[in-house]
C-alpha cells in the first residue's frame, strides 16, 4: 500500500499537524519508502499466532479505591495542574472559544 499526497494530508489532519504543500510533497516518498519496507512483515506466516499483549509475563494490578492515597497521583493540586498552562483563568485552562 502506498500513500499519495491526499492521503498524507488526511493523516496529518487526523494527527493535528499542519503541513505545507511543500512538506507534503517531501513526505510522500519518505513515508512510502518506510511503508514499503515495513510491508515485508506480510511475508510472515502468523497463522494461529496471537498478537503480543504483555511483553513480560505480568498481571494487571488493581488499586484500592482510596482518594489521594498517593499525593503524586491524587487531586487537590490545582496549582500544580495549572502551573505550566499557556492560558489559565479563574482556576480553568483557557482555550480558543469552541462553538459546539
Amino acid at each position, binding site marked *: 500500500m502506498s500513500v499519495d499526497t491526499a492521503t498524507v494530508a488526511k493523516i496529518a489532519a487526523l494527527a*493535528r499537524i499542519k503541513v505545507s504543500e511543500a512538506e507534503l510533497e517531501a513526505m510522500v516518498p519518505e513515508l512510502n519508502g518506510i511503508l514499503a519496507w515495513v510491508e515485508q*512483515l506480510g511475508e510472515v506466516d502468523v497463522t494461529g499466532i496471537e498478537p503480543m499483549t504483555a511483553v513480560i509475563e505480568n498481571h494487571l494490578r488493581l488499586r484500592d479505591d482510596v482518594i489521594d492515597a498517593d499525593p503524586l497521583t491524587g487531586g487537590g493540586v490545582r496549582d500544580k495542574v495549572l502551573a*505550566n498552562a499557556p492560558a489559565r483563568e479563574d482556576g480553568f485552562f483557557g482555550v480558543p472559544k469552541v462553538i459546539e
Partner: protein
Amino acid sequence: MTDLTELGVAAIRDGVAKGDFTAVEVAEAFNANVAAAQTALNAFIVATPELAVEAARATDARRAAGQPLGKMGGVPIGMKDLFATKGVQTTAASHILEGFTPEYESTVSQKLWDAGAGMLGKLNLDQFAMGSSNETSYFGNVISPWRRSDGGNAALAPGGSSGGSSTAVAARLAPAATGTDTGGSIRQPAAFTGISGIKPTYGRCSRWGIVAFASSLDQAGPMARDVRDCAIMLEAMAGYDPKDATSLNLPVPEWEAGLSADMKGKKVGIPREYRMDGMDADVAASWDRGIEWLKDAGAEIVEISLPHTKYALPAYYIIAPAEASSNLARYDGVRYGLRDLPDGAGLQDMYAATRAAGFGAEVKRRILIGTYVLSAGFYDAYYTQAQKVRTLISHDFKNAFTQCDVILAPTAPTAAFGLGEKTDDPLSMYLNDVFAVPASLAGLPAMSVPAGLNREGLPLGLQIVGKPFDEQGVLNAGLAIESRAQFSAKPDKWW
C-alpha cells in the same frame, strides 16, 4: 591529587565514604568539566551545577554525622532530559516542551536522589527519544567526543537517543548518566562512545514520570564507564512502583554483590541470523573476539537461531510509531508547553499549528506513520500483524534460551558515523538498531560493553541479551568480556 573526573561510580562512592575526598569536590570537578565542554559537545540542555553541589553537601553532611550515604552517595550524574525533574525544565529535547517545568519528579530520578546521587544537569537527546544519532534534538546536535584516528576532525554521532548521556560519560562530564532504551537507545550510544549501558527487563524500572515514547518498549537504565558502575546504578534505579501498572513487583537483586566474571557452566548463544551479509569486518572480528573471551571465561558457546530477526526492525517501526502517535497526542498547547495560536484560530487550528511548530521532522514522520498504521482499514494489516510478529520474535528468544543462558551479538552494525551522514535517509538511520531492537521487542535485559576499537580508532560494543529478570547473567557476561577486553581507550580531549 588525582583527577576526580576520571573516577567512576564505585570509586567515587567508596572514596567519599572513606573520606579520600568530599562529595562537594567531586561535584565541583564534574561541574567544571560540564561547563568547559558545553559549547563543543552540547551534551546538556540545562546544567544544574547548584543541584549537584547541594546534593554533595547533603552527602558530606551525612558522612560527618555518621549516617549511611546510600548506594550512590556522593555520585553526581547526568539525567537524560526525558525524566521529569521537579522544578527543572524537562523538554524531551522538543520545542513543544520548551519551558515546561514539572511539578513532579520521575520515580527513577527520585530513587537516584534518594540513593545519594546529585544532578549535574539535563542531558540532550534525540527529540522524544526518536533517533539514533542525537541529530533530532531541538536543542542542537550532541557531538561525540570521539574522532577518527585519521587525523580529521569530522564531527561524529554519539549515538541516540541517549546521545547526551553517552557523550557526557565518555567525555568525563559525568561518571554516569541515565538513559532510556526503546529500540536500542542505551546500548547503541554506549557502543558508539566506548562505555557500558544496560537496559533491564521491561518493568524493572518504573516509567512513571518519564516522557513516553513507546510505552510497551520504553525502559530506563544506567550508562556508565564499566559493568560494576552499571550494576550499582541499576540497583538504585530499579524497583516496584505501584504508579506504573506495568512495573514488575519483584525485589531488586543485589547485582553489584552478585558480580562474577566466571562463566563456567554457562552457555552463550550465538545467533546465526545476526551474521548478516556484508557485515562490517571490524564488527564481525570484535564479535569473534567476544566469543573467544567468553570461552576463556569458561562458557560453552552454542549456535542458536532467532529465525524472525529480520522482521524485528519493521515490526518495531510499526509498533513504536503507533504507540508514539497516541502518546504524543497530549502535546496540544492546552495544559503545558508551546501554544501556537494564529490570529482567529479555533481550537483544532491551534492544535495543528502548535504541533507543527513544536515537533521536529523525525517526530512528525513517526507520528504520521503511527497514525496511518492505526487508521481504519489498515490496523490489522499493519499493527495486528506487527504484534503477531512480535509474539514470534519473543518465541524465538524463549526457544533460544532453552539452549543457552545469554546471547552474544554486536550492539550495532557499525562504529559511530559522521553527523549528517544518514540524516537524508530515515531508513538507513533506522537500520542502525537492527541488532538492538529484537531484545526490546521481547522486553529482555540487554547491555552493551566496549569491546575494542575499529580500524578508525572508534569504539565497538558487544551486546549481551539475557532471559527475563536475569540482569545478573547479563552483567556477569559483560564483566567477563570487560575484564578480558581491557578496554581503556578514551577520546583525546579536543574540546
